[in-house]
């Protein structure tokens, strides 16, 4: 309920342009750039960008959990309440994951239709699992962004910057093997990287056993970010109370 109250993007007037039109055109943009540059394939860019787009709802919605409360002047009321923080914030994370999953799948479907990419029907159930895990890990990073929102006023700017980092480092448009080694190393500890690799393998006809390790790694990265996010929320909450900066960050 608090998610719906804070995340105004669920209005169709906002949801359709941002969660359907924008990801589809991002896919088309990079697919055409890829053709012009003579690298990758439509499938490569379709899968990479569709999954990367899960980061939009995951990062922005989680960032809104704090900035939205602050904007509504309910942040101090929320944090003074005796409610346990873990169910409070994880409860808001669940619809975010579903949102990210749906956003990616719709982009994947529409993008495939427009570009004429065929996705093997047999790989679809596993693909849904991979996208869901990727959305989960990205939501973990979103929780870190939400914690930073206790200190940073411009959460939209922060979320955009994190999204940009994911775009470059996670092998979305350039495979990790073609990136400089330090960039690939950074990419391996970020959400989405392993998920995108697994999804590409599945679309290419790989079996679950071939991608299981990648999916496990993606999930593990998500858990780590989730724990870091919860820890940071606790730490920044204590600090904000101590220095009385909850509403003026």
């Amino acid at each position: 309920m608090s998610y719906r109250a804070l995340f105004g993007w669920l209005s169709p007037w906002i949801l359709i342009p941002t969660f359907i039109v924008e990801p589809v055109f991002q896919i088309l943009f990079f697919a055409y750039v890829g053709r012009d540059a003579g690298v990758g394939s439509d499938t490569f860019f379709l899968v990479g960008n569709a999954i990367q787009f899960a980061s939009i709802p995951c990062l922005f919605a989680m960032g809104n959990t704090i900035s939205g409360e602050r904007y509504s002047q309910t942040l101090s009321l929320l944090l003074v309440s005796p409610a346990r923080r873990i169910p409070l914030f994880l409860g808001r994370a669940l619809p975010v994951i579903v949102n990210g999953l749906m956003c990616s799948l719709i982009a994947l479907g529409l993008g495939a239709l427009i570009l004429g990419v065929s996705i093997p029907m047999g790989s679809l159930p596993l693909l849904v699992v991979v996208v869901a895990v990727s959305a989960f890990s990205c939501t973990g990073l979103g929780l870190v962004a939400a914690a930073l929102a206790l200190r940073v006023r411009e959460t939209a700017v922060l979320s955009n910057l994190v999204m940009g980092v994911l775009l470059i480092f996670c092998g979305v448009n350039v495979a990790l093997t073609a990136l400089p080694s330090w960039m690939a190393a950074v990419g391996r500890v970020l959400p989405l990287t392993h998920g995108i690799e697994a999804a590409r393998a599945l679309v290419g006809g790989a079996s679950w056993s071939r991608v299981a390790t990648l999916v496990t790694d993606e999930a593990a990265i998500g858990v780590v970010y989730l724990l870091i996010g919860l820890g940071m929320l606790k730490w920044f909450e204590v600090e904000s109370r101590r220095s009385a900066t909850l509403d003026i960050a």
Partner: protein
Amino acid sequence: MSTAIVRVWGAQVRSSLRLLAVGWWLQLKMRSRSAFDGILAIVYPMFFATSVLLMYRQGGSTSALVGAAVGASVLGVWSAVATTASTSLQQERRLGTLELLVAAPRPFALLVVPMTLAMGTIGLYSLLATLLWGRFAFGIPVSLEHPVVFLLASVVTAIGVSLMGFLLAVSAVRYRGAWALGTAFEFPVWLICGFLVPVAALPDWVAPISWVLPPTWGAAAIRNAAFGGSPWGDIALCLLLSLAYGVIGMWLCGRLLTSARTNATLALT
């Protein structure tokens, strides 16, 4: 009698130009200090430019990489305007200043155009920043054939994009989620206007759409000025279309304001 009319008309033009200049400077100072409108408008397109340059570098063609460096620099001009222009009047409404602007004794359009011109100017910062990023982070040697004409083409492109933003701002005044509209237009314009991919590489039906968008001709002028082609025709078309967008925007402005005043919906849409 006719001399007096000319004198009054001349004074009005001078006064309008002064208003545009003062408004542009004020908006530029305000927006360049905003984390979203100023800093992010420069940094955000650089993420996409970086991604694009990495792709072209992987492709291995040096000439394509140099072309991409110039094309990628134009991405930011539109980025700086698209979302911020579409949401600018919503922002005025939220701040409670929209009614004051509408009630001002000068035409409303003359108060909105400086906003989008300031955004376009920030877009020019982005263009320069992306070119420098390509030079120093990727080592791309962009040697401009006609530097002065390149500068002129960049300014004309920024004006074209600004007036397109003006039309977008006015059109979206009654749309509560206007920023979403601007965001949704970001990639289509990057693609359709041929900033990176030639329009000829897109489906045939896209070409007529690209012809009526000023950035198409602006980007072509920038490329021609950079690589030794003749940019003057493109510059002229960009200016002509910009003027058309400005006139349509002013007409729409009048219609929407009349409607908003009649139905008392200025603050309540």
